[in-house]
């Protein structure tokens, strides 16, 4: 039963209510504290790493290697004057930081961060005789919860900009909401590819499906059974680009393009209200990296190499994979120039969304035909060929439409030298 629905057995067993409550509270407090510390370290590491990329030293005063710099900044912001602009909508202005921060926390609830998945392990750990997963919650909707929360975060940014009663925040928030909804479509479509393979929305099941050995690499050695390999690399790349845009990270940080619109949606925010937006932003980077690790890189699943107890290897693998993604985000910020708004929208709508949709249909077609007995190499080639031919027709159609749209706009365009 739990194997299919993968619900947290903590709530299915016969543990007493008080016992459950105690375990839940302990998990929540640990997750909360862990998340705060990881965000603190992430902010410090980003500043330190980007300094190295730019030949600077970066923070080096507060604590060893400046590791307490974020804490010092946070404490400082408590002592800064909290301004509410005269032209703002006071209620919404105060509400917006909550809408931004709370979803950032909640996304982390469904991410499995540990547990032993090696050798067919189910990732359960035992806390005082009660089995539970090393994640806060594992509801039926699982990964949909991540999408729901990232949609709510759009409201925080939209309302923050709108309620400020100032032009730069308004511009920033309008840009932000258009950008975030555009890339949410691509994000959702790339996610469908994962569901095709897993057949379940539960994050624990998604991780368990990726444990063990996958296809052979050129017949030499088995690769891990990660979704990034099994699904072809395309869904992961789409998901990664869409996530970067969702997070408003460079090169998609038009929302906070300081050369054009000051600070974007949080221009009018000061003191602790700004700090909460900042916290939410970096927390989103950490949690969305964790979601990517879960969906495409097997989360905490990995081989048990001995030395440590088996249950600890889950943490090690998870944080190692997470760290790679965090460094990747910082590296992107250090190397890529910001996109123009039309380039951003074109990339999202005219490339990522059609490609993600086509890829999902391609994977489904292959699976359906192999279920019907078309398993030999030749038969798969036929299916692939026919599918690719059809997709080329649609891609051509899209290309014609794009060039038509461009022509129509140029016809109506403003004349120069006229």
């Amino acid at each position, binding site marked *: 039963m739990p194997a299919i629905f993968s*619900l947290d057995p903590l709530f299915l067993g016969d543990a007493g209510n008080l016992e459950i409550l105690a375990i839940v509270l302990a998990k929540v407090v640990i997750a*909360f504290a862990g998340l705060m510390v990881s965000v603190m370290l992430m902010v410090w590491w980003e500043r330190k790493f980007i300094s190295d990329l730019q030949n600077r030293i970066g923070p080096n005063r507060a604590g060893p290697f400046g590791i307490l710099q974020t804490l010092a900044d946070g404490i400082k912001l408590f002592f800064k004057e909290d301004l509410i602009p005269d032209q703002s909508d006071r209620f919404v202005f105060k509400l917006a930081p*909550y809408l931004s921060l709370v979803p950032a926390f909640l996304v982390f609830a469904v991410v499995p961060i540990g547990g032993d998945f090696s050798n067919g392990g189910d990732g359960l750990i035992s806390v005082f005789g009660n089995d539970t997963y090393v994640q806060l919650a594992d509801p039926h909707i699982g990964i949909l919860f991540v999408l729901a929360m990232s949609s709510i975060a759009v409201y925080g940014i939209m309302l923050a900009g709108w309620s400020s009663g100032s032009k730069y925040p308004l511009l920033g928030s309008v840009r932000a909401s258009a950008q975030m909804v555009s890339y949410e479509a691509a994000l959702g479509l790339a996610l469908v590819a994962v569901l095709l393979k897993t057949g379940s929305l539960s994050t624990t099941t998604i991780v368990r499906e990726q444990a063990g050995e996958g296809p052979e690499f050129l017949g030499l050695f088995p690769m891990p059974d990660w979704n990034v390999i099994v699904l072809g690399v395309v869904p992961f790349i789409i998901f990664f680009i869409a996530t970067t845009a969702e997070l408003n990270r460079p090169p998609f940080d038009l929302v906070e393009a300081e050369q054009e619109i000051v600070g974007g949606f949080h221009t009018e925010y000061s003191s602790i209200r700004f700090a909460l937006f900042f916290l939410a932003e970096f927390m989103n980077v950490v949690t969305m990296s964790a979601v990517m690790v879960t969906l495409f890189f097997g989360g905490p699943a990995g081989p048990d190499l001995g030395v440590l107890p088996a249950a600890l290897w889950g943490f090690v693998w998870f944080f190692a994979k997470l760290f790679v993604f965090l460094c990747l985000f910082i590296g992107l910020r250090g190397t890529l120039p910001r996109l123009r708004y039309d380039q951003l929208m074109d990339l999202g709508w005219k490339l990522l969304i*059609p490609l993600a949709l086509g890829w999902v249909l391609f994977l489904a077609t292959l699976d*359906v035909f192999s279920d019907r007995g078309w398993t030999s190499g030749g038969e798969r080639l036929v299916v692939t060929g026919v599918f690719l031919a059809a997709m080329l027709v649609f891609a051509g159609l899209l290309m014609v439409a794009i060039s038509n749209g461009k022509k129509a706009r140029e016809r109506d365009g403003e*004349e*120069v030298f006229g």
Partner: protein
Amino acid sequence: MGQYLPILALLILAVLFAAISFVASGLFAPKRTTSAKRAPYECGVEPAQDTPDRFPVRFFLVAMIFIVFDIEIIFLYPWATIFRQLGLFGLVAMFIFAFAVFESFVYLIGNGALDWGPVKRAVRRELVDPGRTANTTIRRVGAEGRMEFDDVDTRTATPGEAA
């Protein structure tokens, strides 16, 4: 509903954290506000214009097209979890549905609904000699006086359109 208990607990904790931060900030932060500080941010000068109430209609278009795609994605999720049971029937149905959405998407793109930014159209004027003439000794500079349009994008300009 027990599965959602941890999420609820985390929600309460997160809201409490934000609320306590505000209270702490209220206790510690100085209150020396002036009307200049509370004015809309404008790089230190008096705002010359009010905040616009309107913004380009394209943003609304994006929101509407997003809803179309969101609905498609919502239909894809349940199908993706059980598409192996549905087999060929489900696949064909999904292809028809995806085609229906794609076709409207192509129509939108073809009308330039998702194009951004101002487009300029280069138009040929009556060409003049860039050199000195009997009327003026000023040598004309810039593209408008040149016999050639080498540097100018003339993709859309046709001789018939000359203004």
